């Protein structure tokens, strides 16, 4: 599963409050959440982002509360995947569970610049900066994560599994 897009770059410790501020948590509607994505750290983000774009960030992306609205908002805003030096534990789970592909790669997270065109094969863990010509190797997804992402998240995956068990 590969994505190509323009990079939006952020630093370390991007917390769930800036990804989607608590004042918008009165809805679960992805489209509505997407309208406020990254509002408190990058007010121009929603106007700038194009379908398929990629977020690149430093350590501990998604720290803070366990709110699942955060990965949902990022995905609904059109972001295809997030590359970071590391992810906070519950965000990491929530991203896979809600169908947002993420890749851990400290090296790429350090070097890739805002505005670069980047191609990410999330499953194989291959990151290519088309602007600079550099490539980076992240860990490939284990088979389970591949299936989770291919299913579109945990609940669709579980449905499939339950249907298989019945058949």
């Amino acid at each position, binding site marked *: 599963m590969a994505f190509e897009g323009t990079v939006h770059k952020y630093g370390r410790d991007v917390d769930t409050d800036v990804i989607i501020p608590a004042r918008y948590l009165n809805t679960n509607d992805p489209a509505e959440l997407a309208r406020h994505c990254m509002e408190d750290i990058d007010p121009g983000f929603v106007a700038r982002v194009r379908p398929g774009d990629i977020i690149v960030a430093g350590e501990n992306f998604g720290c803070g509360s*366990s709110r699942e609205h955060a990965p949902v908002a990022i995905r609904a805003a059109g972001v295809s995947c997030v590359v970071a030096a590391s992810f906070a534990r519950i965000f990491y789970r929530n991203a896979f569970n809600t169908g947002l592909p993420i890749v851990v790669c400290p090296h790429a997270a350090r070097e890739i610049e805002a505005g670069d065109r980047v191609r990410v094969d999330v499953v194989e863990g291959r990151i290519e900066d088309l602007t600079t010509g550099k490539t980076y190797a992240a860990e490939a997804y284990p088979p389970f994560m591949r299936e989770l992402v291919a299913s579109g998240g*945990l*609940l669709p995956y579980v449905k499939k599994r339950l249907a298989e068990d019945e058949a």
Partner: protein
Amino acid sequence: MGQTVTEKIIARAAGLEAVRAGEIVEARVDLALANDVTAPLAIAEFEDAGFDKVSDPARIVLVPDHFTPNKDIKTAGQVKKVREFARKHGIAHFFETGRAGIEHVILPDMGLVAPGDLVIGADSHTCTYGAVAAFSTGVGSTDFAAAMAWGRVWLRVPQTIKFVYHGRPGRHVVGKDLMLHTIGMVGVDGALYKAMEFAGEAIEDLPIDGRFTMCNMAIEAGGKSGIVGFDKKTTQYLQSRPVGSRARTAGQVFASDPEAEYAQVVEIDAGAIRPTVAKPHLPSNTVPAEDLADVRIDQVVVGSCTNGRLADLQQAAEVLKGRAVHPDVRLIILPGSQEVFLAASRDGTMQALVEAGAAFSTPTCGACLGGHMGVLAAGERAVATTNRNFVGRMGDPESEVYLANPYVAAASAIAGHIATPDMVTTAKGGA
């Protein structure tokens, strides 16, 4: 190859001979928990995904505890959703106000958790049950929704850091101090993704309450779980649970192999640890309590899933008995459960606290998350036996929280500033 207790429990639940740290498995969930904040979202996801039945109602627990007794109209509506879902799906472990308490106090106390169990909860402090040698960890609402439908959870097997506590802690040094000291050492992400295994003489001596406190705060070091080995104290506690409960009838005891592989082994001299306080705004910001005598306070809270058990209330009462809360301080006691409430009212603990000038609440999370029952105003400062002192955690973003054990909390309530019991008893001429 040797395995840690955590690896053994996960392997058992995943139906595998052995697992290795880093591996991803699908494990059967013995118990899945959610509360009045996380369950409503999970229920919406469960229903939106088109599921119409839960896989096993007996393995689901729903505890409205954050904003109960219903704080306002909005929270009443949230709790109602949870209650109706429980009725519709025959979930017997729905804990109604008056028969409930804080999730992480009542699950083990009601005997719902057995050793060797695998427990997940849509609440970050689900790591508490490691005190009864179970593996338990916090997850998101989707994980809980999936566990309800499927009875399983996916897990990446964590590496383990072993913490070995040597020696004997001194007077007024309890599980809270060992843990605050540890978080101060390793930092708030010192155990990120990892299981924290607590061992050593000081842990063998530590009562079960102190073990709950330590496992509860594993998340404050970034940990996925905390766990203490099974021993006589575990057996005694489990056998004191309700007749016929899982705690008394089920479970399987696992222990780490001597040659188990650890990411790190941290040795700590428990004898050198003093009553410890975490200053705002991080649990890792620790100093000895006696160094903070110039910090004046407005409120003291004794309670929460960290220190809301009977032993905690008794420790506070021991210091406060026959003394009075400082005129400028409000002391609020939040017992962890109905069982704790009743026991405290029977053994004189409640009377000692109320006579000293404490407000004694019905069981609830309440003030711990700045929800209700003791919210702080701008500029106010509290000493709390809770687990988080982030900006705005107990109220206004300009309020401050100092985390401490119940002895220090009680002594501070008397002194009007942060104090150890020795400081207030000396002031009175010794007692």
